C-alpha cells in the first residue's frame, strides 16, 4: 500500500483490531474491535484501568504480539507483516525497567545504540548529548543500580530515543515516581515531542494525561470508549463545570435567579456553600458574582472546578478508576472518531 494523502498525517492507523488469548479453560478478549488513528507529532494518551487492554494494544503496535484480527499500521508498515521495518522507527520504554542495573548509564545506552544499529562513529556524541539532556552526564559511568527511580526512568526514556524514532511508546512512564521526578519526566516527554517525535503514552494517572496529551483514548474492557482532545472530552459531561460559592447569607430569590440561567444545571445548597453545576462555568461566574453584589450578599469564597478526566471516565463507564467489577457500557460515545 502506498501512503496516500490521508495516511500522510496519520502515523498509526488501527482498524478493527482484536486480540484474543486462549488458554485451556478460558478465552480472554484483551482488545476488542478497536479502530483509531494517531496523528503525526502528537502526544497521544491511552487511558484505562489496570487490565483494560492498554498494554496488549501497545504490545501489538510494538510487534511483540500479532493481532488476532484486524490491521495495525505504523507509518507505512503493517505490524504483523513488516515487523522489522516497524522496529526500526519506534522506541519503546516498557513499564517495568529493562535497564541493566549492573552496567553504567553509558554502557546501557551504548548497548542499545548497537542493538538499534546507530552509526558507530556518532554514537559517543549521541550518548553524551542524551545524558546531558537528562542531567546524568556526571553519572555516566556509575552503575544504574545506584540511580534513583527518577534517574532510571529518565535514562530509560532517552535510551528508547537513541535512534531518533518517529514514535516513542511510553508505558506508564511515571509510575512509582515522586512528584518532583514526575515533573521532570513530563518535561522530558514534552522536549522529545518538540523534536517532532510522536509520543504514545499509557497511564492511569489522570493528571498526567491532562497535562501532556493532545488527544486521549479511553480504553476499558478491551474496547475504545472515547477518543478526543481534553477540551472535547470535558464537553461530553452535560453538567460541565462545578462552581462553588461561599456566603454568609443567601436568599431564595438569589438562588432562583441563578437557576434561571439556561447554562446552569443542578444547584445545591451545602451549608454555607452553594454548588452550581453549569456548562461553560468560566463565563458564568462574572454574572453570578454580579447577581450576588446586586442583592448585597457578600461572597466569602469562590472556586470553579472543571471536570477531571476521572469524572469523565466515571461518566463514560459508570465506574471509578479503581476498577470496579461492574461491566462498562462499552459503546463509543461522543467525540470518538477513527
Amino acid at each position, binding site marked *: 500500500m502506498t501512503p496516500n494523502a490521508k495516511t500522510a498525517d496519520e502515523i498509526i492507523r488501527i482498524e478493527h483490531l482484536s486480540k484474543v488469548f486462549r488458554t485451556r479453560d478460558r478465552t480472554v478478549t484483551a482488545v476488542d474491535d478497536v479502530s483509531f488513528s494517531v496523528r503525526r507529532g502528537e502526544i497521544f494518551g491511552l487511558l484505562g484501568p489496570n487490565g483494560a487492554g492498554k498494554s496488549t494494544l501497545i504490545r501489538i503496535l510494538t510487534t511483540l504480539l500479532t493481532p488476532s484480527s484486524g490491521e495495525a499500521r505504523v507509518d507505512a508498515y503493517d505490524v504483523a507483516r513488516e515487523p522489522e521495518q516497524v*522496529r526500526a522507527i519506534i522506541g*519503546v520504554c516498557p513499564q517495568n525497567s529493562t535497564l541493566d542495573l549492573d552496567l553504567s548509564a553509558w554502557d546501557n545506552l551504548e548497548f542499545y545504540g548497537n542493538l538499534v544499529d546507530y552509526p558507530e562513529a556518532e554514537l559517543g556524541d549521541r550518548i553524551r548529548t542524551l545524558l546531558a539532556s537528562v542531567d546524568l552526564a556526571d553519572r555516566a559511568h556509575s552503575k544504574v543500580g545506584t540511580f534513583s527511580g527518577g534517574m532510571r526512568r529518565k535514562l530509560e526514556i532517552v535510551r528508547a530515543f537513541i535512534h531518533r524514532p518517529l514514535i516513542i511508546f511510553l508505558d506508564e512512564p511515571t509510575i512509582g515516581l515522586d512528584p518532583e521526578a514526575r515533573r521532570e519526566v513530563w518535561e522530558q516527554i514534552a522536549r522529545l515531542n518538540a523534536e517532532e517525535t510522536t509520543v504514545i503514552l499509557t497511564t492511569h494517572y489522570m493528571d498526567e494525561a491532562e497535562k501532556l496529551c493532545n488527544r486521549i483514548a479511553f480504553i476499558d474492557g478491551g474496547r475504545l470508549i472515547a477518543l478526543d482532545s481534553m477540551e472535547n472530552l470535558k464537553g461530553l459531561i452535560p453538567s460541565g463545570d462545578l462552581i462553588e460559592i461561599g456566603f454568609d447569607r443567601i436568599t431564595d430569590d438569589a438562588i432562583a435567579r441563578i437557576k434561571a440561567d439556561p447554562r446552569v444545571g443542578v444547584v445545591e445548597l451545602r451549608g454555607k456553600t452553594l454548588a452550581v453545576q453549569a456548562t461553560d462555568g468560566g463565563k458564568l461566574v462574572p454574572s453570578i458574582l454580579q447577581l450576588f453584589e446586586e442583592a448585597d450578599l457578600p461572597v466569602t469564597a469562590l472556586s470553579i472546578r472543571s471536570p477531571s478526566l476521572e469524572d469523565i471516565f466515571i461518566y463514560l463507564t459508570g465506574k471509578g478508576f479503581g476498577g470496579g467489577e461492574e461491566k462498562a457500557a462499552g459503546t463509543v460515545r461522543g467525540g470518538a472518531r477513527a
Partner: protein
Amino acid sequence: MIRGAIAIFRRDFKKFRSNPFVIIMTLFMPIMYLVIFGNAVGGTIAGVPIGVAQEAPYVNETPLFTASVDMLTHLAQPGKADTFKVTVFSSEATAKEALADGKVMAVAIFPSPISNTHAVRLYVDSSDYTTPTLIQAGISGVLQQLGSRTPLQVTKLYGDVDYIQFFGVGVIVMAIFMSTMMGGGLALIRDRELGIIEGYLVTPVKRASIILGIIGSGTVKALLAGTIIFGVDLLVTGVVIRNPEDYLLVMAVLFIISVGITSLVVALSSRYTNQQTYASSIAFLNLILFMTSGAFYPTLGMPDWLRWITVINPESYAVHALRALILRGQGVGAISGDLLAIGLFSGAAILLGITTFRRTLE
C-alpha cells in the same frame, strides 16, 4: 514474638509446598547420589580389554602362553562377569600398536620358547585408575597359579599417574559444565523474567543476532572456565604436556564441548520459567553426567544400566579425549572417535538451542 515466628514458618512452608517439583528434586538428589554414586564408584571392574602375544621368534605356542590365555579369559570374581576381555595378537608389534591406540589397556608379551630372558613383559596403560593394578594382579595371579617361575616385568606406559592427575582431567570438563549450567542458564532465565530479552525484541536487532550473541558469550565464558581449570590442573597435578600440538587439541576439545553445553543450557533455560526449578533440574543433570563420565572412577566398574548412560554422555567422551591428550600424549588419532561424538553432540545441541530459544522469542 511466637506469633511472628509462626507466621514466618507458615509462609516458608506454604512456598515449599507450592513447588512440588523442587521438593521431589531435593528428595531425589540424595537418592540419586546413593544409587549413582554408590554404583559408579567402587564397583567391580570387569571386561578390561587386554592383549596378549608371544614374543618373536615365533616357533609355536608355549604351554605357558596357552594356559595363561585360557585362565585370563575365564578369570572372574565370584558371581561377576569376566574380568578381562582378552585379544590374542599375532605379534608383539600389532599388540603394542593396539595399546598405543587405546584399543586395549594392557599388553602381556609371553616369552618365546627360545627366549633368553624368560620373562613375561607387561605393558600397561597407567593413565587409568585401579585398572593397571588390577591387570598386574590378574596376570601375576595366573602365573602363580600355573606354578610358573617366569618373572613379570611391568612397564608403565605413561609413568606413574597419580589419582589426582587422573581426576584432574575430569575437573576441567566439570568446570565447563558447572559454570555454564549454573551461571549462564540462571542469568538467561533472570533476563527473561526481567523482560530484558523482550526489550531486545522491540529493537531492529535480528533474532539470529540475539541467539548468536547469547551462545557466543556463553561459549567464551565456558571456554575461559575450562582453560583456567586446565592451567590450574597442570600446576597442581604436575602433568607435563610435551607436544605443543596436544595443547591445541585440548583447546579444540574444550571449545567443541563448550559450544555444545552452552547451547544445551540455552535450550534448557528456555523451557524453564522458574529459577529454582531450573537449578534443581540442572543440579541433577550435572550429577548424573559427571558421575557417569568416568571422571573419577573408570566406567568399566559401573553396572550395565549405568554404562549405557556413559555411552550417550558427551562428558565421558570429553574426559576420555582429554585424558588421551593430557595424560597419554596421544595425538588426534586416538581421539577421533571422541571428537566425532562430541562434535555430533554439539551440533545437535546448537540446533536444539536455536530452535528452543527462538520459540521463546515468538
